[in-house]
């Protein structure tokens, strides 16, 4: 627990961060920056888990471990995503998300 800081304050920070990430996902032009937005989203979820664990149910470490695994998955996701992005870049010389739209309707 952090002295003088309630659970809700941490949660508000993480929620804002989460939706900033979502906003970034909506608006960024570049696939890599979209990937960054996803990292923000996952990071905020981690804060949620950790805070709940610490403030509400400190006798077990469920939230703590969940965050640990989310970090590992974020790494795996980022690796594959960057592989695909680079492949895309090699093929079409751009990673502008709006141009990656050859399939529609």
């Amino acid at each position, binding site marked *: 627990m952090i002295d003088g800081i309630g659970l809700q304050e941490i949660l508000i920070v993480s929620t804002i961060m989460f939706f900033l990430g*979502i906003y970034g*996902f*909506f*608006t960024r032009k570049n696939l890599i920056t*979209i990937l960054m937005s996803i990292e923000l989203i996952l990071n905020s979820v981690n804060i949620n888990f950790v805070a709940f664990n610490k403030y509400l149910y400190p006798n077990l470490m469920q939230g703590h471990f969940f965050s640990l695994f989310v970090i590992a998955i974020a790494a795996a996701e980022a690796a594959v995503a960057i592989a695909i992005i680079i492949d895309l870049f090699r093929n079409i010389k751009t990673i502008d*998300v*709006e141009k*990656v*739209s*050859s*399939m*529609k*309707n």
Partner: protein
Amino acid sequence: MTMDFQYTILIPILLFFSFVYNILWGRTRSPKIAGLISTTTILIAAVLSYYTAYQYFFNVGLVNGSYEKIIAFKMVWLHFSDTLVVDMGILLDPISIMMLVVVTTISSMVHIYSFGYMHGDDGFARFYAFLSLFSFSMLGLVVSSNIFQMYIFWELVGVSSFLLIGYYYQKPSAVAAAKKAFIVTRFADLGFLVGILLISYVTGSLDFAVLTDPNGPVMLQGASLGFMGLSVMTWALILIFIGGAGKSAMFPFHIWLPDAMEGPTPVSALIHAATMVVAGVYLVARLFPLFHIAAPNAQYVVLAVGGFTSLFAAVIAITQIDIKRVLAFSTLSQLGYMMAALGASGYGAEEGIGYTASMWHLFTHAMFKALLFLGAGSIIHAVHSNNMTDMGGLRKYMPITHITFLIGTLAIAGIPPFAGFFSKDEILVALHQSSHFWYWVEVITAGLTAFYMFRLYFNVFWGENRHYHHKPHESSLSMTFPLMFLAFMAIVSGGFFMFDFGAFISSNLVPYDIHIHWDIAGLSIFVALIGISLAAMLYLKPSGISTKMATALGPVYKATYNKFYFDEIYLFVTHKIIFNLIARPSAWFDRHVVDGFMNMLAWITNFVSGSIKGLQSGQLQHYAMSFVSGAVALALFFLYFMTR
């Protein structure tokens, strides 16, 4: 006394094996063998059916004054829930046995006939395989012990009909017709399906034995639940009737039947005249107690749709020149009669005369309409054309076809002592009892029927002589034998043996006597004769033959010919008014509005589909926005509107 009827399972099974054999190995053997196998199996099935009928009606006979419903075979098939179980079984009762006889008889004749008609065709084995499949499904349908089993066979019948209509798959029109038949009946079948769902929902059973028990609890269930002013049971039955209307080509689902004439003619005789199209009538008859007791409103719908279809189709038939299409519309009209009779019938031995009449007409109609179609096939085979305008004077070349066709025509026109007279008379009696409006509609239809059928007859066999490329000749024995047999049936299945259907088939399984009502019969004969004379005047060309014909037809023709001095007025009335003002517009309406409606539905769907394509923009971020806003909207809705 109980009899063991288990052997009846063989009737459909045999045909199924014949189908499997022909579809797998038929092509590799000589086509003759394929045909022989199919024909043999259907003949065995026919013999078994006759034996069953004999056993059922004469050996088992009446128990406590009525016929029993016998479950000859039964196995559990599907479990819907712990209580609702669907069987696969065989139900024997008077109407299912009658249908067994009808289907196997007509099917045997068609099998034999096809030997000649389809001779030399590439797909001979395929054709017989499909015929076997069709007979199998149709027999499975008529013996179904529950409505779900019936639905499955119902659809199988639809599939085999699809295959047979589209048999000439090289012909685009044939394939289009097959597709149309398939879609339209599927459309109607969805109604059937929802009806079944509702029935199972309301009654918790799908068994015919339970559903049609007039004293059972089912009759009262669903009456309390209402929906838009009608009870749920009424809705269920109306929806089921929509399914029946689709198969039996009632207005407005009739549009597929005339097009279905693209199939080979024996197929038209079997499927689109005698067996499959009566499935709808059979379905209503199967559920008759339910219609009559639990949902009178639904029964009135049956009457109205049947009555209207019979008139509507008869009017259109006047304008057709393709002989198969004339027969197709006449089939519609006759099916309308059967439906109307069911709609008008009461429940009970004497009151249920409409029920008996409908089944009787189904029986006789199967005989004479198959005869007419096979005759038409024989003609087409000889002339190589479907058009009346290409024919004329054929009586000299094809005597057997001519005589048998005449018998069929007289039977459908309702002239005694041919079969159609008796059954149609009973239908009119039933209508007279229940509704005068529909009675008069059907009387007029009877006149129209006589008119257009004789128009066809005169045009083909009399009229002016054409010059044919090949001299038409009588068909081979394999084709004429079925004609003769069916002509015989068309004579005797009515009243010749003085057996009456009431002794076998009645709405509550209790036999009773049918009398001919000469007051009503007299009127219908008179109307029919008017129709015939009119046809004779217009189409029997005055070339010496007409005088012979006039003497042959006797005083009625003379009277009409002499009394109506004003020929011109007469022609004006018929041609200008009936043709141009009623018949042609009806035909136009049929082709453009009813058909068009179906097309419009497709068009609207397409249009809507096209107008929303922008949603799928290919933009990753739009997808994400839709995703998140969907989630947020759901959350918002359920947090602030649902729970408060």
